[in-house]
């Protein structure tokens, strides 16, 4: 499938030693079978222990190893090198738009601040039933395509609007979660949630560029969720929520 050698160009930056970030080239023996980008990083780390990156579950559930792979954001642990290698070369960079702590590790503070802003928890002040708050199958269906987000930040860091205004624009990941709670029949703070998103930046900085949809490793559609939030903001009614597979 490949030549015998594989070239990996890796973004390197250690603020304690380097004045500026730089790209370092590594050449490794091509693995006999197709491996994931994360495995490739493990191979590199055997050669150079100073390489830093985040990883945890290595199966696309924790969302720790989001990075820019040959120009497109994705999860290293579920991206086979065969799907990204170009001319026997792979370029790995940190997620764009966020401050780099070291090598492929970025500071996610701005991303989490936006997530916190949308209050990602059910708000229902009515007396809780003995067992649980029930939903009809139809009400539950509305959450499909929303709750699966693993907050890897691949979408938000591929969004130019988030690059320019990470402090004001909520970003696709957090907006997907915002709609997850707006669409939840058990949540009773719809009006307050919409009010919090009604300024010109939080939602309306989304210009429908669709990078978020293109890169989401879980195949979700934040852009459609944002469209639903805009519809709700225009009508400010909970009953306009549609659930055709957001």
């Amino acid at each position, binding site marked *: 499938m490949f030549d015998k050698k594989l070239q990996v160009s890796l973004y390197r930056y250690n603020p304690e030693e380097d004045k500026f970030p730089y790209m370092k080239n590594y050449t490794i023996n091509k693995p006999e079978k197709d491996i994931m980008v994360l495995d490739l990083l493990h191979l590199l780390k055997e050669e150079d222990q100073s390489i830093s990156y985040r990883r945890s579950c290595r199966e696309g559930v924790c969302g720790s190893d989001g990075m820019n792979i040959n120009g497109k954001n994705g999860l290293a642990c579920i991206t086979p090198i065969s799907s990204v290698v170009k001319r026997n070369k792979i370029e790995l960079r940190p997620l764009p738009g966020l401050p780099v702590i070291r090598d492929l590790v970025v500071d996610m503070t701005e991303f989490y601040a936006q997530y916190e802003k949308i209050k990602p928890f059910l708000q229902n002040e009515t007396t809780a039933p003995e067992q649980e708050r029930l939903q009809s199958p139809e009400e539950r269906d509305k959450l499909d395509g929303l709750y699966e987000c693993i907050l890897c930040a691949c979408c938000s860091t591929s969004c130019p609007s988030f690059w*320019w*205004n990470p402090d004001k624009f909520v970003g696709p990941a957090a907006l997907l979660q915002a709609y997850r709670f707006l669409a939840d029949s058990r949540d009773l703070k719809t009006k307050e949630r919409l009010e919090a998103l*009604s300024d*010109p*930046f939080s939602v*309306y900085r989304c210009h429908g560029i669709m990078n978020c949809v293109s890169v989401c490793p879980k195949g979700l559609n934040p852009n459609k969720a944002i469209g639903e939030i805009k519809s709700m903001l225009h009508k400010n009614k909970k009953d306009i929520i549609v659930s055709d597979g957001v």
Partner: protein
Amino acid sequence: MKGSIIWNIQRYSSLIVLSYIFYVVTFVLRNELNFFSWSNFFLSFEIRFITTLVFLLIVTHAFIGLWTVGTDYLTNRTLGFLSKNLAGRADFLRYVFFSAFCLLGFVYLTAIFYIIWL
């Protein structure tokens, strides 16, 4: 101002401007076009009023677009990618940008009002 109001102004203004263009083009295509027919067309108070409104909407539409561009690209963060000096002057540059557009919009509207009403 609410984001939905700005969003609506921009969308509806573009639709109104588009309708106006269709209306004028239809007039041009359906009538023999000469100085008198064109003058008569614009002598009507309704047409002059609508034309004034349309040009106000064009300027408003453009301002919203440029405000978006300004608050995206003329910020401390974005200019910081180019140079620290520029980033330090981002607020000033943005106000200059908006002021220049406001001045241009004012001159544009003044000229339009003069042409249409005087």
